[in-house]
């Protein structure tokens, strides 16, 4: 890359460097769950994900298979006929990695469409399993509640289950419909377990599984609630999208703080991050109206960026090029990963200068008092993959660089890294 081209990029405000594929991993099956990354042993990251044919993979940061677990359940011939053999063992929820038995290593917890929930040890050996009566498409919440570890997840049999570290049922809660949303914990005056359900209700339970409050939306909720002190005070809020196209912000009593309407279903968890150093949390999420949105904590749009298809994977915020400015990483069903400037960019509505103003329609007073433009999403890089992006995560390598891991529906996992020109 020539000095001239770099200088031109700098002058035009474009970022230097490019996004390159470091490696690709092919599962030879359809990928069904968003990959997750976690520090498995000190300084070493692992990447875990499930496939539609019922395999749970654990890879190291260089895409080498550490182990994989294949779901084996005895199903008689008649039962088999009632199942869709291509998807019956599908793992649709991301696994949860947590040390549930205090052995210093992280176990892998996940459910599948056969209604079974599995706990594997750090080497991929089965520790125990639990049977629900419906598909399990909800990732488990693992939390110490009153000094006892609880593993909490939902099922399409309408129940939210809480198990202990050995897989024994502690309590269960029956909702009005199936539960595919991941539960989240809200630690306030009272610890609450928050989750959504297929008929659009958002539930809050206490730590014994008793209903505290519920809030009704008009569409299925598959997203995990994001919980944070968005106003930078002590109060925590619940941010969750629904298939009724709205993003809801509720207070800890289940009262609506505000909602933001998009033109498409909101399927995944919103990302809460302070992108502009004002200590308050901005809200970044994708919608099936093809847009990635960034909202202020008050619910006004800071910017949006339109992709060519639905944005189903949860976006996240990192500094991919180590320039101390944050970027938003979001995958779309249009097969591309978008890396956007987290703060967006200000776009003038007209060219500055007297001629710019005089050539605008309307009275010049309006132009002088009106905002001279608006913030819009600013694409820094776009990387085209080989299929629909169903999920993404990131790892930090030994050089403290962030590497983006992209899960592609067709069964591939891409590692994208930033490279200086």
């Amino acid at each position: 890359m020539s000095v001239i081209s770099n200088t031109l990029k700098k002058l035009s405000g474009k970022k230097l460097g490019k996004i390159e594929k470091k490696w690709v991993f092919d599962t030879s099956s359809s990928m069904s769950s968003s990959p997750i990354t976690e520090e498995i042993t000190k300084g070493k990251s692992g990447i875990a994900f499930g496939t539609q044919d019922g395999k749970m993979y654990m890879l190291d940061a260089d895409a080498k298979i550490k182990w994989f677990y294949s779901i084996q359940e005895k199903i008689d011939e008649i039962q088999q006929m009632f199942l869709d053999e291509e998807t019956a063992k599908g793992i649709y929820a991301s696994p949860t990695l947590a040390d549930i038995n205090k052995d210093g290593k992280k176990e892998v917890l996940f459910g599948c469409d056969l209604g079974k929930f599995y706990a594997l040890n750090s080497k991929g050996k089965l520790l125990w399993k639990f049977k629900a009566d419906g598909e399990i498409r909800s990732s488990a919440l693992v939390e110490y509640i009153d000094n006892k570890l609880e593993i909490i997840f939902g099922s399409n049999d309408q129940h939210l289950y809480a198990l202990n570290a050995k897989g024994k049922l502690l309590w269960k809660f029956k909702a009005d419909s199936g539960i595919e949303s991941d539960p989240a914990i809200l630690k306030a005056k009272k610890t609450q377990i928050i989750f959504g359900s297929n008929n659009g209700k958002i539930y809050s339970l206490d730590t014994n599984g008793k209903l505290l409050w519920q809030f009704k939306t008009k569409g299925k909720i598959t997203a995990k609630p994001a919980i944070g002190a968005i106003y930078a005070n002590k109060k925590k809020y619940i941010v969750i999208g629904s298939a009724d196209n709205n993003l809801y912000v509720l207070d800890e009593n289940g009262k609506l703080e505000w909602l933001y309407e998009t033109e498409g279903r909101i399927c995944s968890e919103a990302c809460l991050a302070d992108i502009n150093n004002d200590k308050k949390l901005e809200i970044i999420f994708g919608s099936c109206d093809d847009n990635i949105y960034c909202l202020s904590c008050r619910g006004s749009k800071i910017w949006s960026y339109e992709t060519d298809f639905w944005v189903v994977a949860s976006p996240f915020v990192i500094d991919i090029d180590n320039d101390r400015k944050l970027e938003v990483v979001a995958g779309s069903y249009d097969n591309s990963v978008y890396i956007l400037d987290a703060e967006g960019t200000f776009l003038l509505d007209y060219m500055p200068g007297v001629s710019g103003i005089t050539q605008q329609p309307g009275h010049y007073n309006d132009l002088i008092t009106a905002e001279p433009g608006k913030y819009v999403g600013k694409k820094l890089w776009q990387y085209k993959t080989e299929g629909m992006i169903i999920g993404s995560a990131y790892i930090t390598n030994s050089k403290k660089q962030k590497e983006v891991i992209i899960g592609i529906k067709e069964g591939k996992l891409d590692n994208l890294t930033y490279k200086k020109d």
Partner: protein
Amino acid sequence: MIKNNKELKRIKLYIEGLDEQLQGGIPEGYVTLICGTAGTMKSSISFNVLYNEALEGRTGLYVSLEQSAKSLLEHAENMGYDLSKINIVIISDIAKLKDKIQDIKSAKGGSLVISDLGTIRKEIKGTKIGPSGDWLNVIKNIIKKLKAEAQCDFFILDSLSALYVLSNFDDPRTKLFYIFEFLRDIELTTFLISEMPLNKSKYSEYEVEDYLADGIILLQQTERFRKVIREISIVKMRATDCNTDVFTLEYKNKKFYAMQGGKPPLV
């Protein structure tokens, strides 16, 4: 690969006077709705295709969700079909599907396979799965196995209306889209029997079926001078230059006839 009109292989309806109006028949692998109110011979027209194709050495699957195989075959006998000329296989026990596939494979020529889900539903009552299991998956699994292992070329579902009762159709538009795509992907020439309401206000339950189907054949009963005559018309057929006039439908001498401007019955 996109085939042009002349390259499309066509499947006869075996209705004299109508196939000629359809460039020889329905394009192979297409999904066609057979719509009509009760008594318009929807099942008979569909059965007629499978019977004649079996005589030609090809295999077809007739999935009956409510009428038993026994009742269906008795009706065919009464209409004069010589059932001894073809190989008939009845699936009334899912556990014996492998054996039935073996029967189809070992038979000379084609087979007419009747999957008697009504009987299977009765048998399954009281088992671990119970009658509330996902019957759509059962149908899809039978189709997949028959296509893969027994060279099945045709599929008839009798009826869509019964399927809606047996399977969960909370989001019918999406679910039907995937069913039609499944049928097209598996490349079976398919007839879906749709029970129309008596007021004939729509061809199918959710109406989206009309748009998803490649073809619609409408069967009607019309009263003229206190006589009821049967009529048939092609409402739509993709990739076909067809005559959409209404024809009189008659069954005589063990054969279906469609007559343009058919003679009204004598009073």
